[in-house]
Structures are given as structure tokens and as C-alpha cells.
């Protein structure tokens, strides 16, 4: 295809004898994509196609990232993810793109709302330094009297939210993560309601980092979850993120909030400890897992979080390798790939051997949360690591399990 034709230009083509009129979308890998006047996109092979005429597009209204500062209100911080996803006309797939104000719509009426874009990434690319940035931004907003809602991709939302939960030693305002499982470019997106409910939940003054997402596949009801007890348990459903035991802090239904589980209230001031030690690996154990693989993973790490089987077990070979690592001063935390229920190294001989090797078991903490907690403790409280790992510091461990 020849000529300087840009996205949005009106174009007339001859393709295998048919005259085709429409709007030029893209030309890539020998394929011309044109949007016909009836709305259909057609992808035409360049070789069979001839441009008859083209006409530069009128400028469309530009989508701007408007930012609004606010005090004593609710600040929405966007970091990317599906909730800020749009069609990528180049690859044809969905990519992050931002237009926060269009997401808020009629939610938060009567609330003093601010918006800010602090990042623009897919959540699988989130790293610990992003968490530090989020925490710092959130702290600044809290200091201005704002509750904080963070828009985040759902894939690693529980990692980020739990990391922030640890970093916030005190929080003067609520901090709620939300996202969407259907991108907001579709009429069925859960983004709009999730944001509205996150704003509404701020009224509870929860002094913990929380997550607010759909409560079921239906609309009209969202739940507020404890960040350190939540996990994404389905790849695609709207209600994928949940407390592993189904314990919601609160629910909203048709606009009405009901508090359920007991939660911590906000503090007078916000205090954050933002040091995170990234040299931690999360390791999944399975039959045939080789000691040499473990030692390769442990290379240059200061702590390992292992997802063992059942009550927190690994094979004899791995137990031996762990003994070697703990002797070298590497912290080893045992969690369970079962996800629910306590890790307990007292019950079986394997567990007792691990315990003797200095492996730390921390009740029913979720493996991903154990990872962020380990990063946090190694960064800030290394000398109290063993003790603090085993007790709940952000309600990440249930001392009583009732189901």
C-alpha cells in the first residue's frame, strides 16, 4: 500500500473488483484494515487491493487524562490494568489506555472526587518498586484527608494490595483497590460499578487495605475484601477475587452498605515503611522437583516462600536442600498449595524435620501474601523476622479457622 494515509482517514479502495469505501484503520504485515461505513472492519490483503482515493480525517475529540487534585475527599489513583484497557488498533488486542473521568460516570455523587494517573501498566508487569510508588502516592493523599481508591489490574491485585497492607503501618484513611474483569470499552463492563462501590465503601473508614469487586456474576452488588486474605480464584469471572474463606468485610447491594466481618478502623495518622527486599522467591513444590532446581532458585535470594503440599511438606531431597539453605542464613517460609487451612509442621515427621531445619510455618497465610510479607519484613524487621512471620500483623493470618 502506498501513500501517506493515517488512522481515521476516509479511504476508497478497489479490492478484487469491489469498490470499498470506509475509514482507514491500519496497515500491518501486508494487511490493510478498513472500517466500512456500515461499521464492519475488513482486513484486506495488500496485493489484491488498490487505493483509489483518500481524504484526511477530521480531528476527533482527543481523549485527555484529566487530573483533579482534591482534599478531604476520595482520590482515584490509576495504575493501568483492564479497568483502564482499550482496544489497541495496532495489534488488535486490548492494551492499557487511560481516561479515568469516563469511568467514574455518575458514581460518587456528593463525594469530593479527585483523579490521578500514577502509572499505566498491565498488572503482570507490576514490581515491588511500583508498590512503593503506590504506597507513597496513597500516603500523600491520605495526608490531604483523602480516602484512596487504586485502579489496578486484577491479575496481581492481591499481591499489590497485600504489599501495601504491610507497608501501611498506620493509615488515616481507607485504601481500596478495584479493577475490572471486563474492560470498560464494553457495555457489560464491571468497571463502572466497581469504582462506584469502592468510593461508597470509603464511608466505612476501614483502616486496612481492601479490595472491592463484584460479589457474584450479577451486577448491583459488590463486596469489600481484606487485601491480605484475598486471592484471584477464577481467570475470568467478575467475582474472581475473594476471601479464601468467603469472609467479606462489607457488602453493597443496590447502593446500601452492610458491614459484615469486624475490621480495623482508621488511625489518626498514616505511617508507611516502604523498604521491600526483593530478593525473595516463591517456589511451588511438586513431585520430581529437584534439589538442584531449588538451589538454582535460591541463588542470590535472601528468603524463600515455599508452597508445599498439604500441611507444608516437601520431599526428603528438598528437605535436605532446605537444611543447607537455612544453614546459610536464607529464611525459608512454608505455605501450602492447598491455599486454605493451616500449615502445621508438628504433625508429620517431614514437618518436624523442616521445623528443626528452621523452616517457619505461619498458619494459614496465603502463599502470595507470605511473599509480600517476607519482602516487607526482610526490608524493615529482619531481626524479628521469625517471630513476626508467625503472628498476624495485618490480619493476614487467621488465628481461628472456622471453615
Amino acid at each position, binding site marked *: 500500500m502506498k501513500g501517506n494515509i493515517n488512522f481515521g482517514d476516509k479511504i476508497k479502495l478497489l479490492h478484487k473488483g469491489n469498490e470499498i469505501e470506509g475509514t482507514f484503520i491500519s496497515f500491518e504485515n501486508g494487511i490493510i484494515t478498513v472500517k466500512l461505513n456500515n*461499521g464492519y472492519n475488513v*482486513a*484486506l490483503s495488500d496485493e489484491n487491493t488498490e487505493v483509489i482515493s483518500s481524504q484526511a480525517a477530521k480531528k476527533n475529540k482527543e481523549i485527555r487524562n484529566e487530573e483533579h487534585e482534591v482534599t478531604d475527599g476520595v482520590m482515584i489513583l490509576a495504575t493501568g490494568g483492564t479497568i483502564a484497557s482499550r*482496544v489497541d488498533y495496532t495489534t488488535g488486542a486490548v492494551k492499557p489506555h487511560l481516561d479515568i473521568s469516563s469511568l467514574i460516570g455518575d458514581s460518587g455523587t456528593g463525594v469530593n472526587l479527585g483523579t490521578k494517573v500514577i502509572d499505566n501498566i498491565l498488572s503482570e508487569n507490576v514490581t515491588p518498586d511500583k508498590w512503593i510508588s503506590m504506597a507513597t502516592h496513597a500516603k500523600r493523599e491520605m495526608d490531604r484527608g483523602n480516602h484512596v481508591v487504586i485502579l489496578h489490574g486484577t491479575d496481581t491485585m492481591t499481591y499489590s494490595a497485600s504489599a501495601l497492607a504491610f507497608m501501611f503501618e498506620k493509615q488515616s484513611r481507607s485504601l481500596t483497590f478495584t479493577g475490572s474483569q471486563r474492560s470498560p470499552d464494553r457495555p457489560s463492563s464491571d468497571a463502572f460499578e466497581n469504582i462506584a462501590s469502592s468510593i461508597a465503601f470509603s464511608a466505612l473508614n476501614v483502616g486496612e487495605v481492601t479490595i472491592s469487586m463484584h460479589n457474584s456474576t450479577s451486577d448491583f452488588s459488590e463486596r469489600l475484601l481484606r487485601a491480605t486474605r484475598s486471592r484471584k480464584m477464577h481467570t475470568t469471572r467478575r467475582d474472581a477475587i475473594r476471601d479464601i474463606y468467603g469472609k467479606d468485610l462489607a457488602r453493597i447491594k443496590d447502593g446500601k452498605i452492610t458491614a459484615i466481618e469486624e475490621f480495623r478502623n482508621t488511625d489518626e495518622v498514616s505511617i508507611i515503611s516502604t523498604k521491600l527486599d526483593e530478593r525473595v522467591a516463591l517456589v511451588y513444590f511438586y513431585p520430581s522437583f529437584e534439589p538442584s532446581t531449588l538451589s538454582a532458585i535460591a541463588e542470590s535470594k535472601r528468603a524463600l516462600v515455599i508452597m508445599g503440599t498439604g500441611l507444608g511438606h516437601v520431599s526428603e531431597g528438598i528437605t535436605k536442600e532446605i537444611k543447607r539453605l537455612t544453614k546459610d542464613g536464607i529464611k525459608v517460609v512454608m505455605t501450602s498449595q492447598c491455599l486454605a487451612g493451616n500449615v502445621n509442621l508438628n504433625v508429620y515427621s517431614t514437618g518436624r524435620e523442616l521445623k528443626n531445619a528452621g523452616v517457619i510455618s505461619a498458619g494459614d497465610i496465603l502463599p502470595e501474601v507470605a511473599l509480600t510479607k517476607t519482602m516487607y519484613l526482610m526490608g524493615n524487621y529482619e531481626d524479628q523476622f521469625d517471630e513476626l512471620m508467625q503472628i498476624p500483623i495485618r490480619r493476614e493470618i487467621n488465628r481461628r479457622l472456622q471453615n
Partner: protein
Amino acid sequence: MSHAQIKLGLEIHVQLNTGKLFCQCDSVRGGDKSSSFSRRLWAVSGEMGLTDRAVSYEKDRARVFQYEITDNSCLVEMDEDPPHPINKDALLVALRVALALKSDILDHLTVMRKIVVDGSNTAGFQRTSLVALGGHVETSRGPVKILTICIEEDSARRVSEDGKKVLYSLDRLGIPLLEIATGPDIKDEAHAVEVAREISFLVASSGHFRSSAEAIRQDVNLSLGYGRVEIKGVSKLSLISDGARNEINRQLSLAKAMEALKNNIGTESIEIKFVDCSATFVGTESKLVSKELENGRKAFCSLLKGMNGLLRKGDLRIGKEIADLVKLFGIRGLLHSDELPGYGIGSRETDSIKKILAPAANDAFMIVLCNDAQVKTLEKEIKERLTKLLSLDFSETRSVSEDGTTYFLRPLPGGERMYPETDIPNVDLVNMIAEAMDLGPIDSLSTAAEKLQKEYDISAQDSSVLVREFKVNEFRELTAIGQDARLSARMLLQTIPELENHKGKIEFENIANIFRYARENGLKRESIEVMLGLIASGQSIEQVIKDPGILPLSEAELKKILSEIEDGLKPGQIIAKIRKLTKRPIDTEVLQRLLK
């Protein structure tokens, strides 16, 4: 009337039985529902950053959609799982139809999302894809141009609607639809019926036609020079011609009414301003009004400048144009001055309203019964619609009632409401064309009838009707059960339609069961007919096979009856005599033997 200036085109939608288009659910069976869920839809901007007219219109209605989950739906229909790769069997049917219509098949298939926010798609859009451009269909009155061939997913089936809540079933959502759009060169209503029949036959002839009452639906595109009107979802062929004819008449009358209105108001623009007149109706005798007021609604009245006598007089019916619109917002009560006094409303009330609105001689007025929240939307929507009609732009999407009259559905959507389905990569069609060709060409209606006649040795008449009525699959199935082909044809074309006419619907599954039972138990035509009759009367297959009346008279029974009949009658007379004595089947072979 003269059809010279009329442009008439069709969009024919045919369901396929290949399984659903974007998941592995069955597209033929399985409508049993289990649980349900509720959703709302949001108006979002399309590919170019604009929001389509039809979409923002629907947004104002703010409805709640409830969906029944059925055993032939899954997370894809629930909009909880991205679409799976497109159903290849369905795509091959599309390609074969395109080949038969000599359409140009595109190199690549790009699946689009067509935004539809009336809840009929859980995603808020329908997935649709252009397969081919151009081509034509041969008809008795010359070739009709084909514009496009698309493959798309069917929408959810609307079960019921109650105010702001609409209940849909997911059973139909996702069933593959072939959409074949003709050019506007159809000659008249009768020609439209022929074109529809010929095109849908082509699809059926692929062997992947889904037998069901709603398997074929047509949209009629019609223009008299007042803009394009699309009449949606015409499910019966007969409605094509009725609908088109009624719509033509409506537009002619409407043009007349609008000319009159223009005369009355000149360059003045249309203004709607509702005033609360509830007080007027305290103690009214109108049950309609008092009931609405009791339910917490209010009465609002507005002047309709220059419309006196145009709202409802003879064929002038601006009132219905307003009423159609108001109804879409769930508002039942609309009254206007051309029909008042009436509906229990007397001159006391109309005088009182006139005092409020002070209409001039050629002014009319209307009364709506609704909430405060609705009245602002109504003012805007009525004004917009009347202004558009006044400019003689009648383009819009309409639907057709069972009686063949059409009614307003929504503004015509624009291209804005389409954007790419990002969850499905483009499909290379070039290689698939060869595969489609390997499956052989699809026959036209007449070729198919000829072949069928030869294959089964049935009459040309039967063969032609079987083909035209889409009964070939059923015919093949019944014959395969082991019954005579002529018998199958006779049952399908005569006995069953007659029984259904007089008694009731017979499910094909039951027909097949009866044929199978008859085969296994050596029962003949006479017994089959009795059994079909019992089924048509509402009995279950279990009841029917237990009925002793389905068994033919035994030789002994026949002998006994014959011994009581006077001698010397002809066989025909004898049978008539026996028929008077019993409804049981008569094995004519046995009878003949006995009569020898």
C-alpha cells in the same frame, strides 16, 4: 400504489445447527433453565470515541436485565469467559452459501462487536463478522443483488418484560446466524417473499439449518424517499408483505400529516413542555388515570402546537408516533386531545387542562402519566422525534406486530456502534475456501427438488413441497427409520399438517418415536395415523403406545365384524360400515384376504 419510488431490500437471518458460534454449547437442544443472574449495561463510546445514537437512547431507559442460565449456555453466554475460537463448521456453511451466491469471500475474517444495549446480548454487543461481499440470487423476476454475507451470533431470547426489568433466556444466545443482505432492488412485497424463500433455502440445503419456529427471521429495509426504515425480526414470510405494505401506507399518511403540521406552525420549532396537572384528575372517572395516580405517578400535560386534528383523524396519526415512543419508557398512560373526551375523561377535565395550556384553535394537547424523573427525558425524546419527522426524515428501526402493523423500536444505529472483537484473532479464509469447496456446491431450490425425487422415487410434487417447506431433513430421518419414503412424505405433507390444524402441534421427536415404534412392532400406516392423532390430542408417547386402540383389528375380530355385516356390499362400503363400528386401524391386506 405505484412502487416506482420504493426501495425494498431484505436481510435474511438463518440459524445454524452446528453448535454455538463462540463456545461448545449445543445450538439445537437444551433450553432447561437452572439459575439466573442480573445485569445492567453501560453506554460506552465506540472505536472512534463517539457514542452511537441508538446506544445513548437506550441508556436513558436504564433497564435491568435478568438472564436465565440454561443447560445449553456456559460462561461465554454469561459474558464471564471470552469467546472461544469461531465454530469452524458454521464458518464453512457461510463460505458454501457465499460460493453459491457468487459472493466475493474476504481474505480474512475480522470479528466485530456491534453494540446492542437492549440487554439481548449479555456482553452489550453482538459478535458479527463480514464473510463476503457482492453476489446475487436468481429469482423468477431476475437476479437480485447480494450486498453482504455475515456470520453472527444470535441474541438472547426475551422471555418477559415488566417495567424496567427484562427477562431473557440464554438458550438462543450464541447460536450461529447467517445474515444475507440483498440490495434495494426487490420489486415488490411478493418478490421479497420469493427472495427470502430462495436464500433461506440455500442455507437449509447445506444440511445445517436449525429446525425451529424462529430459525429464519428477516429484516426488511424500505425507503420511500423519507429515509431508510429497517423493520426488524420478521419471523414469518407472510409478515414480509404485510409489514412492507403497512409501512408504506404509514409513511405516506405520515408525510401528509407532517405537511399539514408544517402549514400550521410555519417555521416555528416543536416545543414540548410538560406541566403537572394531577390536581385536575382528583376524583376522575377515568379508571386508567386514577389507577396510575394511585400508583404514585402524576399527570402531566403539554401543548402540541398546530396538531389539532393531526393526532388521530382518518389516516393522520401523529398520536401513535408519540405513543409508540412513550411506551418504550415503560409508560402506559398517554392521552391526547383528538381522542378526548373519552376514556372516562370528560369536558370538566379537558376544560381545566385547556385553562392551564391555553391552546389556540389548531393546537392539540396530550397528557402523560409518569414520574417526575421520566418527564424530562420524555420532553427531550418527543421533541427530537417530532422534529425529525417534521423534516420528513422517517429513518428509524421499527418492528412488526402479529397483525402486520409496524411500530417504532429505536433510532437507526450508525456505524459508530461497531468495533473489533479483540478477543478473537482474525481468521484466514483463503485456505478455508478450498475446504468449503470440497464439501460440494449447495443446490438451488429446483435442483434440490429434482435430486430428492430421484433419490427416493417420490412424486415431483411431494419432492418440491418437501424442499420448499424445509422438510427434507425430517423426511430423510423418518425414511431412515425404515418406513417407506412415500409414506413418510404423505405423513409429513398431508396427515401431520392436517392433524396439527385440527388438534395441536406434534413435536418431530414424537413423530420419529412413533415411526420407530411402528417399525419395531410391525404396525402399518393405519396405526401410525391413529397414533399421530392421539399425540396431536395432547397424549404422551408413553400413553399412546399403551392405548389398545392403536392395534389393528385382528383377523378374528375382523371376521366377527364381517359376519355381522350384510352380504353383497362392495369393499369400500364394507370399510365404511366397519368404520362406524370401531375407530381401530384396519389392516387392509387382512381384510382383502377375508373378503376373497
